[in-house]
């Protein structure tokens, strides 16, 4: 049912972020000009490297698939009113878990190995962020800070495992685990160079969207996000739902880690820690925590990430330029948040103001 009120609201939710991204492109152009590069040339290069040809678009899709999955790690808990930024940690842990299982049972048939790696990535990442959710609910530990601290723990664990217990002695300069046998690697979608991780990402986005918007589970979660006291009075199991959603969120990021090792890297090493987690936060935020929108934003941002190398080669801009662009997008989109409801085009006559949401309060500890 597409009634009058809805389409204007949807139009607003689509137009404002898109306008914000364009505005950040303009700012980025100015920044590049200040740094001594030709802004129009930079735009052309980004477009060419991201969407210019089928070849480069496939590159973009390869970058987009982990982003889709890591963005869910922030987008799902956001429905509860929780801000989790442990994407990077869950990604790394999922990757380690996948490699460990993949190497342990490498004699099994490839399908079984791939399945086991995926499950291991999902479970490891899920437990990682599930713990953050449990700490939040049962011990009132701030989830943003704890999930970020856990990122550093995960990276330290990765460095330890690849240079000690899981190290392949032949990897000299860059300590790595033993490689996953080529047979067990995730293949490409027929007719393309894009691996099956993209399908995982799309399916995960679709499932979580359906789960959050069309099931009682999702409704319960959004109720908690809207008003936790009302949810508690209504008898919703707030604790179980919090842990379950955090587990789900972490499992998506863990699956992204599995995809990265089983389709791209082939082994776990420090390259696993390549900022997919932090970029995922940005994707979730630009998509306003909507899983379906996240899949589209991931493609857009994946394209921009894919152009990092070209900017360095053609315009002699440092590779950190892409980070600057990400930061600009983040700030401008954040600024645009304050513009909702300011334009009359998007307003309906009978606009109903939403009540202010009540912040997430953990279980009273005195109980």
């Amino acid at each position, binding site marked *: 049912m597409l009634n009058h009120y809805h389409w204007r609201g949807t139009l607003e939710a689509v137009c404002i972020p898109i306008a914000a991204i364009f505005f950040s492109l303009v700012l980025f152009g100015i920044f590049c000009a200040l*740094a001594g590069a030709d802004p129009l040339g930079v735009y052309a290069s980004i477009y060419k490297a991201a969407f210019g040809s089928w070849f480069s678009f496939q590159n973009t899709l390869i970058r987009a698939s982990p982003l889709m999955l890591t963005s869910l790690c922030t987008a799902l808990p956001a429905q509860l009113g929780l*801000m989790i*930024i442990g994407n990077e940690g869950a990604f790394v842990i999922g990757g380690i878990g996948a490699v460990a299982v993949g190497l342990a049972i490498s004699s099994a048939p490839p399908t079984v190995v791939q399945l086991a790696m995926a499950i291991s990535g999902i479970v490891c990442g899920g437990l990682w962020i599930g713990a953050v959710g449990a*700490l939040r609910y049962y*011990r*009132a*530990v*701030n989830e*943003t*800070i*704890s999930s*970020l*601290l*856990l*990122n*550093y*723990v995960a990276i*330290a*664990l990765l*460095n*330890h495992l690849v*240079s*000690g217990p899981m190290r392949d002695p032949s990897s000299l300069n860059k300590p790595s685990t033993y490689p996953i046998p080529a047979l067990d690697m995730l293949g490409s979608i027929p007719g393309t160079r894009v691996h099956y991780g993209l399908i995982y990402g799309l399916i995960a986005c679709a499932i979580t969207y359906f789960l959050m918007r069309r099931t009682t589970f999702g409704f319960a979660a959004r109720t908690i996000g809207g008003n936790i006291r009302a949810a508690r009075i209504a008898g919703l199991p707030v604790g179980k739902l919090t842990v379950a959603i955090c587990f789900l969120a972490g499992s998506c990021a863990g699956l992204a880690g599995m995809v990265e090792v089983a389709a791209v890297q082939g082994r776990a090493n420090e390259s696993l820690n390549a900022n997919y987690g*932090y970029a995922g*936060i*940005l994707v979730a*935020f630009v998509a306003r925590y909507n899983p379906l929108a996240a899949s589209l934003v991931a493609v857009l941002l994946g394209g921009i990430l894919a152009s990092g190398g070209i900017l360095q080669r053609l315009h002699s801009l*440092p590779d*950190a*330029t*892409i*980070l*600057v*662009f*990400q*930061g*600009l997008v*983040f*700030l401008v989109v*954040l*600024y645009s*948040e*304050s513009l909702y409801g300011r334009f009359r085009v998007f307003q309906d006559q009978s606009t109903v103001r939403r*009540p*202010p949401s009540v*912040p997430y309060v953990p279980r009273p*500890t*005195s109980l």
Partner: protein
Amino acid sequence: MTINNLSFFSDYLVSSLSLSVPLAFAAIGGLWSERSGVLNIALEGMILTGAFVSAAGVFLSGNVLLGIAAALIAGGLVGLLHAFLCVTLRVDQLVSGLAINLTAAGLTAFWARVVFATENAQLPGFTNVGIPMLKNIPLLGPLLFNQDPMVYFLFLLIPLSTYLIFHSSLGLSLRAVGEYPRAADTAGVSVILFRYASVILSGCLAALGGTYLTLVHIRFFTEGMSAGKGFIALAALIFGKWHPVWTFLACLLFGATEALQLRIQAFNLHIPYQLLTMLPYLVALFAMVGIAGKSTPPAALGIPYVKESRAQ
């Protein structure tokens, strides 16, 4: 205890204090901001900004004081941005902090490649200024009376912050703004002004923490050198119950953990050093788990103040 043991212990204390200084500056900065009701996840970005700007300033001008001044201004500007987003535009304060962290990481990495592209020279830093007589006291002397000027400033900052926040009318207004802005507003205290001022101050102090990293610890700027220190400072703030003295002690605890970690690495006790690097983060996490429920944030923390709204 032999002389050797004593000097070892004294060294350990000195390095614990030194490692906790950047945390303490950032945490006291965060304390000012959060006491006024503005969440400051952006501490990480502010530390990084301060670290980079002071390094670049000293590198280009050769003058340490000029570098510090530049870092203070840059940190203040980052604070101003955070205040504008949170207080004036009233966007989500957590997200604003994250955006600032990401932007600071990008911009500092970018300009570091440009500014420090050619040489890799060590920066001039601070020399310790010993206080005659006092510095010769065993154990306490090197710890308290033979330090660089920034540590002395920190020693001054903590009682000053405690006095201002808890024993002055200014602090009373500040806490009122953070606890119940409507009442403060009714009493004629400008909520907006107080929040802007304290967030800007927190930017300056966090940047000072970053300055300490570049000018005393590493003597150079490396990308992402803040390495989660802003978040450890936030953990210290929670563990210290938003009180300057307890917060500083929490920072000392985390600094001591870091120092311990480095000592164990140096002693080659066959504990893999990669595992040890996670120690400071784990201790910060456990500290937050331990304090659970016993530490209450300012009541209006994270809630934007709207003058005419009737809800809280």
